[in-house]
Structures are given as structure tokens and as C-alpha cells.
């Protein structure tokens, strides 16, 4: 029986390696996709220049404050600032050529200063935005808030308009109906600012003194990627090669299932069934050959990523191989299940490609699962590809130990048993079944 089993496995491997189309689909395409997405997600050195968010600015105020605000925005490395007119900006956003347009209204500088201390009506900055770029909009608003606070406070605490605003605010304070204690406290604050400004003017250093940059965030962040070790940098290719490796291995499993389905429709199935072979040998050999091809694909893909992009198994190598082996077995069982449940080749191919893409998408192969809504993150634990992707991430760039691989391996083996059992139970053994 071993001769038959080995012959069946050897034949499948030989067919795979002599089929250039299968090799291309199984190896070259995931490498191309993994390389591209790895580059998009940061590459391996973290110095990949990312695209700036295109933002148009219309300065209708043309004051010192508004000019300073535009300069502040332009100095931000995340924004690509260009001047425009209201009509042109609206058209550009509508066509998607700009993510947002900021319209700074006339008298913005004066009105913003008044609003800061005197509680006058706040000037409105019109923000036109492309609704398909909601995430970027939040980023633009955050940068705009910081720039406005910095620019307006700088003007108040040193600019010519600021001094006039403080004097004007003191005069208006005396006429206000604020409670006596509040009025006294605010008067002291404004007089303090007035004295500061006068001192700066006497020193001839107005605008260039200690408060020349205005109000800024009172903290700075120090970003540190937590990966496998202090000297290890995150490599964006690790996740993308893992994700696309998983996707194309699943496609290979799918193809193995379709091939088995097609086999039933030609004379080869009759010839195999005419031979003294048990169904265990026939289906088992198919599963073993599919698993061997799957693990070969994963190893070649990660080998390429290692050589070309420096992706390393920074965690447990045994864990990595264990995850690869468990996922390969799961893929083989998945292929058998496709063959068992498929009716016609054409329909099965359509449905199973859709199912595979959903599995891959919800497994975090394309984008990490932490971007999913919480309920979806919880739901995807029933998705085998989630375990495969998490397991590969854990053993590569996260640098986790073997114990962290046990969960994914166990989960993938459970899926293997489930899919395998369904396949054996459902497989139409006889022609009339």
C-alpha cells in the first residue's frame, strides 16, 4: 500500500513542478504582492517616504496672522500645502485632486485674538473635504488646530496686533458686567500680558523673545516600535509576505480541490477507482501532496523575503515551522472539503474563490486585524487564516517564543480535523453518489 501512496504523492508533486502556470501562481505572484504591500506598509528601514496629504489654502485675510498660519501648515511634513482660490479649491476637492481646502476668512487674525480673551464670536475657518478621505480629514483638523493656537497665541504675546488687542480687551473689561472677583483676576492677567509685551518692546526684541513661537503642545512623544528586541526594527515585509503567503497557499489548496473535482469527470478517476486502492490512500495522498506543496510555497516565499528584504524569523524557528506545517495541513483539508462539497467545477471555482478571499480578508492577511471593529476582531477567531497570520507575525517580526505558536498551531489543527472529517463524510465516492 505504501508503493501506491508514495506514487500518488510523487505524481502530484511532479505535476505541480512541471506546471509552470501553477508555479507562477503559487510563487511569483505572492512574492510580487508581498513586496508591493510590504513597501507600502513601511518597508524594512522605516524611511520610506510616504505621500503627503494634498491640502489647498485660501488666505482671504492676508494678515500677519494668516500668513504665519499658512507658513505653519506648510512646514508640516504630513501636508502638501498649495494656495488656491475658493472656486478652484472646491472643484479640486470635488474631483479628488485635493483631500481638503482651508479657507481663512477676512479679519481672521483680529477676530481670533478677540475670541481668545474677550469671548467674542469665533471666526469660522471653512474646511472643504473629500468625504472618501475621512481619516485624513481628522489629521488635517488636528494639525490646523495646533497651527492656529500657536500662531494666534504668538501674535497675542508679542505681535503688534496682540498689543492692541490686550489694550482693547482691558477697556472692554471695565465695561463688562463680570463679577468683581473675576474682573479683577482677568484684569491682572491682561495687565501681566501688557507688561510682558511692553518689556519685549523695550528690549527691542518684540516677536523674537522667549515667547516667539506662541503656545505649543506641552509635551513631545518619543516613538519606539516594540518588536522582538531593542536592536530589531519592524520590517513591514514580514507581515505582507506572511499575509500573501497565506492567501496564495489557500489558492493552491483550492486548486488541489478543484483538480480532484475535475478528476471525477474524466477517465483518470475511473482508472484510479479501478485499481485496488482504498479511499484513505486516495484522499490521504492528495492531502499529503497538497500539504507538502503548501509548505514548500511558504518556505520559498519567506526565503525570498529573507534574502531580498531581510525578513527574519526573530521568534522561534520551531514555532514558525510548526505554524507553516499546521497551516499547510489545514490548507490540504480545505482543498479536500472543496472537492467534497463542489458540484460543478465552474460553480465550485466561483464560490470557493469568494470564500477564500473572505477568509483571507477577515484573517488580517491584507490589513492587520486591529483595524477591524472590535466585534469583528472577536468574530475572526473562528477564521483559520487569522490564526495562521497571527502565528506567522508572532514568529517573525514580533519575535515571540515557541509557546506563542502553540495556540495558532492547535487552532489550525482543529480546523484541519474539522475540514478533513467533513470532506471524508461528504465525498461522493461512487459515480452515482
Amino acid at each position: 500500500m505504501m508503493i501506491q501512496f508514495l506514487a500518488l504523492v510523487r505524481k502530484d508533486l511532479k505535476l505541480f513542478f512541471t506546471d509552470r502556470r501553477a508555479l507562477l501562481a503559487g510563487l511569483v505572484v505572492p512574492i510580487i504582492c508581498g513586496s508591493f504591500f510590504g513597501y507600502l506598509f513601511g518597508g524594512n528601514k522605516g524611511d520610506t517616504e510616504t505621500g503627503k496629504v494634498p491640502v489647498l489654502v485660501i488666505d482671504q485675510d492676508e494678515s500677519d496672522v494668516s500668513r504665519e498660519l499658512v507658513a505653519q501648515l506648510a512646514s508640516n511634513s504630513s501636508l502638501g500645502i498649495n494656495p488656491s482660490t475658493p472656486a478652484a479649491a472646491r472643484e479640486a476637492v470635488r474631483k479628488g485632486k485635493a483631500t481638503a481646502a482651508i479657507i481663512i476668512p477676512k479679519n481672521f487674525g483680529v477676530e481670533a485674538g478677540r475670541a481668545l480673551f474677550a469671548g467674542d464670536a469665533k471666526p469660522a475657518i471653512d474646511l472643504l473635504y473629500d468625504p472618501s478621505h475621512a481619516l485624513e480629514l481628522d489629521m488635517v483638523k488636528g494639525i490646523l488646530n495646533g497651527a492656529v493656537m500657536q500662531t494666534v497665541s504668538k501674535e497675542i504675546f508679542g505681535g503688534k496686533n496682540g498689543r492692541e488687542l490686550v489694550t482693547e480687551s482691558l477697556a472692554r473689561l471695565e465695561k463688562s458686567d463680570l463679577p468683581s472677583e473675576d474682573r479683577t483676576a482677568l484684569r491682572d492677567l491682561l495687565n501681566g500680558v501688557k507688561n510682558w509685551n511692553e518689556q519685549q518692546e523695550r528690549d527691542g526684541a518684540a516677536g523674537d523673545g522667549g515667547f516667539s513661537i506662541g503656545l505649543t503642545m506641552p509635551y513631545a512623544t518619543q516613538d519606539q516600535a516594540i518588536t522582538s528586541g531593542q536592536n530589531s526594527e519592524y520590517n513591514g515585509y514580514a507581515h505582507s509576505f506572511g499575509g500573501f503567503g497565506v492567501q496564495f497557499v489557500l489558492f493552491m489548496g483550492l486548486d488541489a480541490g478543484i483538480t480532484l473535482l475535475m478528476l471525477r469527470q474524466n477517465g483518470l478517476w475511473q482508472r484510479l477507482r479501478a485499481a485496488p486502492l482504498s479511499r484513505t490512500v486516495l484522499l490521504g495522498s492528495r492531502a499529503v501532496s497538497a500539504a507538502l506543496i503548501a509548505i514548500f510555497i511558504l518556505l520559498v516565499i519567506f526565503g525570498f523575503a529573507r534574502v531580498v528584504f531581510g525578513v527574519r524569523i526573530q521568534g522561534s524557528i520551531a514555532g514558525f515551522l510548526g505554524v507553516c506545517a499546521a497551516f499547510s495541513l489545514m490548507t490540504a483539508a480545505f482543498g479536500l472539503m472543496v472537492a467534497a462539497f463542489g458540484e460543478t467545477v465552474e460553480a465550485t471555482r466561483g464560490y470557493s474563490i469568494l470564500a477564500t478571499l473572505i477568509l483571507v480578508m477577515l484573517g488580517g492577511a491584507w490589513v492587520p486585524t486591529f483595524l477591524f471593529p472590535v466585534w469583528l476582531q472577536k468574530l475572526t477567531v473562528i477564521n483559520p487564516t487569522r490564526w495562521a497570520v497571527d502565528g506567522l507575525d508572532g514568529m517573525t517580526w514580533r519575535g515571540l517564543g515557541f509557546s506563542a505558536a502553540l495556540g495558532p498551531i492547535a487552532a489550525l489543527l482543529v480546523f484541519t480535523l474539522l475540514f478533513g472529517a467533513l470532506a471524508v463524510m461528504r465525498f461522493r465516492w461512487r459515480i452515482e453518489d
Partner: protein
Amino acid sequence: MLQVEGLTKVFGELTAVNCVSFRANSGEIVGLLGPNGAGKTTTVSLIAGFLKPDSGEVLIEGKGIQSDTDPVKREIGLVPQNLALYDKLSAHDNLTFFAALYGLAGTKANEAIKDALSLVELSDRAGEKVDVFSGGMKRRLNLAAALLHDPQILLLDEPTVGVDPQSRNAIFENLETLRKQGKTLLYTTHYMEEAERLCDRIVIIDHGKVIADDTLPELHKLFPATNVIAIELDHVDALKPEKILTLPEVKSAELEHQTLRVEVHDLSRGAPIILRWLAENGHSYHHVSTEQADLETVFLTLTGRSLRDT
């Protein structure tokens, strides 16, 4: 020997095979003849064990197939109607694989492959991929793949579909060689010429039922008008067909335009008598032909429909 007894298979409301019985002995080619959809392939599938019969049994050398791995299956060699080859593998690799399915490996497998390739005259193409083979070569390799384990019984399901006449003749010669070796061959076809040329006995099946099972000469006897001589006359003046009826061996005679058609009991004896009588009575002729009832006519007689048109 292959023995089929009361085999019946029903698919839903269709009785594909209805109480089929026949036998095929060693050194004999038995033709299973019938139109498309008559039940030939289903019968072969039942014999090979792909289908489970609703009733009846198949005995291979006196034994039935009890399980998927029953050693009795080694006595069967199957040549499926659809080509059962891996196009991307070489002829030799294909045969190595099919030999291994029957537990043959190493020297035994190599010898079996060599013999099979030699029989179908593909030894010099063994290393080439099957996808570069012609249709006829593929058919011959398809046959070779069924011979590797030296089965006693060969099931050939329309093995010449789509091949050129030269390859067809080559396959026929292969099959005749196998017959001489004492193999039992069950040959399904809907080509009457193939059955007439090859088969020692013919089982005619229609609508799942065996409607005739005999040798070709015996089947011919089922058809009443078996031997006809057709004579193209120069002139028909004064010829009275009823006078011919008085001649020995003559069963009937009729004149249609300038053609005289005479049915005789035996062509070899009747033809000289008729031709001599025509010459003696001054009836000259310019063409003579004979007609013998073929399998098509037999089939038409038995079923009421033409084999080719069904």
C-alpha cells in the same frame, strides 16, 4: 472469464441497465454493441466496480469484487472512454505511476512498461510528454496503461473514439495480439464495423437490455434477407423476373428500373446459376454486385431503429 448475471442499475426513474447477463471467455473478444445511451458504459462501470448494482452480480474468474482493495480488481484492466492520462507527464512517467497503483515498482515495473510500450509501438516516444502526442498515440498509450499489471480481463470502453484509421488499425492489431495471448476482452462500441472486424461474439444492448447475444454469423441468420445479388442490365426488354424464381437457390427476384435484385439462399452457389441463365437467355449486363446483411441491418431489424442515428 467474465460472467455477468442479471445486472440491474436504476438512476432515479431511469433503468440504465436492466437484468443484463452475458459471459466472456478467455481468448475471446466480446463486443458490447449499442447506441449512445444504451447502457454500455454503465455496464462497464458496474463490472469495474465504480457503480454498485441494484441487483445481479459480476464474477471475475469466479469471484466478485468485495471491497475497494479486493485483489480481484487486479484481474481487470480498464481502458476508459475518456483518455486517462496525465498530459504534463511523459509516457514513461504515466506508466510508472499506473504500474505503482498495482504495487509494481523497480525492475518489475520497468519490464511491464517496456512490454506495454512495445506492444503499442510507442517505445521510441517514452520520454516525451503526452501533450505532444497525436490523438491516436494517446489512445494507444491509454491502452498500454491498462496492460501493465497483466490483467486477465480487459474492459475497453470505446477505445478508438476520435482516432485516425491508421491508429485504429494499430489498436485492432494490439487487441488481436492480446486475444491470442488468451486474454478476455470486453469491447464496447457503437461502430458496427469495429464489432464485425474484431469480435468473436456480440452482445447487442438497447435501452439497458440485452436484445441479442451471439456470434456474428448467427446474428446474420436472424435477418431473413441475408444474401442479395444486384445486376445492372443493359436492356430489360422481355425479362420476366418470375422466370428466375424457378432457378435453384433463388428466394425472390424483383426488377427496379434496370437493376435486377435477386435474393438467394447462398451467394457462392446462387450467383453463377443466375448469371449463366441471363447469358443463355440473351440478357446482357454491365455490373454485378452482392449485398450481405450487416450488423446495422441486424440492429435495425432487432430494434426498429438505426444504430448510427440513435
